[in-house]
């Protein structure tokens, strides 16, 4: 059993005494059944060999898959047909993964990523439709709405101490209704038909369409920089800023964090707001890529949002994240999806394959970790 071995103080006779502030009921760190202390420290801290790093494995697997797919179907390397849409997919799903990563950093979950994205996309669409706002304003509104909903989730979790799984599950239910009602009310259906100026360019152009003299840019869609900025920002936030480090510390041990004077509640709100903000960005990006602000945005986000960070080595237990790994995880799933599409697999076979890949990848990760730990013990 890989669950926490410490008994949770569920109120035995002795705990009737007013607990000191240190023991005040901290919001539960996720639903718990994972992460022994050794796992939580992760390979990095234990000084493990490089091959125990899940990112290395991911790069190898991606390279092998790309080689395989492109030798089976040369069209896989076709820029217009495959590579450009592939980059767009990767960009969107990397941001979705980063949104989940922000919640995972605490050991929390955000089951409402998809619905937060939908609400954010709705508000952007509303701005364009009702107020004729320029493209940038819609983006900012989407980010703000996402962040506010995320902060609301974080606030409820902090104020009530209810498990993040339950809170975001309830929020998901709630937003599911709200988004549909809003589209009914304001869009008279399921989508806004408006296209603000610039949206089409953002949707279909790549940098190769923009030339300075005779030098044109690479065939990279205009959406990709959004994901790069998000990646850099998240990486720097968790790696370099005080707030980010404090969130990670809260994730690895809320009690220790509280004892070290970290405002745990506020950090939980921050992390969830970040998660909502990134979900909002993903919603905006998907709406742009689809060319429509519709109620169905975000419906397919839940599974990929966990796939990307978990494949990339982010633990569900909290306290350790890998932003770059998340992008690799998103790349892996998108490459598989595109490749199988080209090989004309049906959608059902695709789902089976992705599920199997996830299990295999995680099992290999586990085996690698066990091997590496054994080697680490025996110097």
């Amino acid at each position, binding site marked *: *059993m890989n669950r926490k071995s410490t008994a949770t103080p569920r109120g035995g006779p002795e705990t009737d005494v007013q607990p000191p502030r240190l023991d005040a009921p901290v919001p539960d760190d996720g639903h718990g059944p994972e992460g022994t202390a050794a796992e939580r420290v992760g390979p990095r801290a234990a000084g493990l060999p490089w091959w125990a790093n899940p990112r290395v494995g991911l790069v190898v697997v991606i390279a092998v898959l790309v080689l395989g797919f492109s030798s089976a179907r040369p069209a896989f390397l076709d820029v217009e047909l495959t590579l450009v849409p592939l980059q767009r997919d990767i960009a969107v799903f990397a941001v979705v993964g980063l949104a989940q990563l922000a919640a995972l950093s605490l050991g929390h979950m955000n089951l409402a990523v998809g619905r937060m994205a939908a609400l954010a996309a709705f508000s952007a669409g509303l701005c364009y439709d009702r107020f004729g706002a320029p493209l940038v304003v819609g983006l900012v509104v989407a980010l703000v709405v996402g962040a506010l909903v995320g902060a609301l989730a974080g606030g409820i979790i902090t104020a*009530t101490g*209810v498990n993040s799984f339950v809170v975001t599950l309830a*929020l998901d239910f709630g937003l599911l209704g709200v988004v549909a009602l809003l589209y009914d009310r304001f869009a008279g259906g399921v989508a806004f038909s408006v296209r603000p100026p610039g949206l089409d360019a953002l949707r279909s152009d790549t940098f190769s369409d923009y030339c300075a003299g005779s030098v044109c840019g690479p065939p990279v869609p205009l959406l990709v920089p959004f994901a790069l900025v998000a990646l850099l920002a998240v990486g720097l936030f968790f790696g370099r800023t005080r707030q980010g480090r404090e969130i990670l510390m809260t994730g690895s041990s809320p009690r220790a964090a509280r004892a070290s004077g970290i405002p745990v509640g506020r950090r939980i709100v921050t992390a969830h707001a970040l998660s909502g903000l990134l979900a909002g960005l993903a919603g905006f990006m998907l709406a742009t890529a689809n060319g429509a602000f519709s109620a169905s945005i975000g419906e397919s986000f839940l*599974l990929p949002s966990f796939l990307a960070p978990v494949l990339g080595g982010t633990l569900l237990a909290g306290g350790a994240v890998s932003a770059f790994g998340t992008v690799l995880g998103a790349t892996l799933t998108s490459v598989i999806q595109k490749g199988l599409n080209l090989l004309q697999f049906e959608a059902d076979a695709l*789902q089976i394959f992705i599920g199997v890949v996830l299990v295999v990848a*995680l099992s290999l990760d586990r085996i690698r970790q066990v091997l590496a730990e054994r080697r680490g013990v025996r110097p």
Partner: protein
Amino acid sequence: MSTVLDEDMGAGAGQGAGASRRTALSLHRTELVLALVAVAGFGVLAATTGGNILQPGTMQAVLQFLAVPIVVGLAQMVVLSVGQMNLSVGALTGLCAMAAASLMADSGLTPWLALPAALLVGALAGLVNGTLVVLTRINGFIVTLATMSVISGLRFSINGTGTYQDYSPGLVRLGRADVLGLPVVFLVAVATAVLVWFFFARCVAGRMLLASGGNPFAARLSGISNDRSVVLAHLLSGLLAAVAGVLVVALSGSVNASVGDDLLLPSFAAPIIGGVVLTGGVVSVLGTCLAAFIVRLVDVAQAQYGINPRWVDLVVGAVVLGAVLVSQRRGKGSS
């Protein structure tokens, strides 16, 4: 209103006796509150619709469509009892429904063979889930997320997006029949709930699941294999999801691969509203059934008043959060 069992359960085995009694007490109160809410909601609905809901036909429809949510909620509850989750519940219900329908329609089996085969499929899938969790030591959430993807792929591979109809007129007649005004499918769901209650209350294996969920360390010291508990819980969860799938087949008369798509969130809603805690060790069959009934009432109210169906999701979300908040508040008050 006889949706309920006469007893409850709630015991954190492996904790102190006082804690266990307190958990039981708090659960009792949760169930009492839920029962009151259910009765009050039903009364209000009956009064405001001018007794419309009390018409035999309406009442039967209410209970008929309560059967699947109850069983699916129980399927989730069983894994929650050991502190695990099963995200594949909805997809598995769909797969078992499709398997049963396919065996009857394509292979020409009688329901007597096809339905047990579907149950076997569910149990096997559950076994795979549990084994994967134990062998890989990956969080059950992630494992079942992956198997959910696989299972829903399999579900579509049986018949694509096609629909099975007319697979067994006898079975469908049975699914729509009623005994003394109570639909057969509902009675099956209640019987399933009684069995699950009996399993957790009186069977050694059930007590072991609760012990593993409540405090795995103590459970291990008492000679209980936590791994076995996890596998058993997932297996039972798969079996119950298959029961739900069979109920769908009997009830609806036509099934396609989208069955189960909308069951995942309700499967969590029922036990969570019912007072089951996510960390394991506590189950409440009565609470889960009552919660499913309350969610069903919201549905019925929507239909009766002609409200936009989207409000249902909103209300259910609020109810989930509200129920957890209330029980949390009460928990703090009593300690």
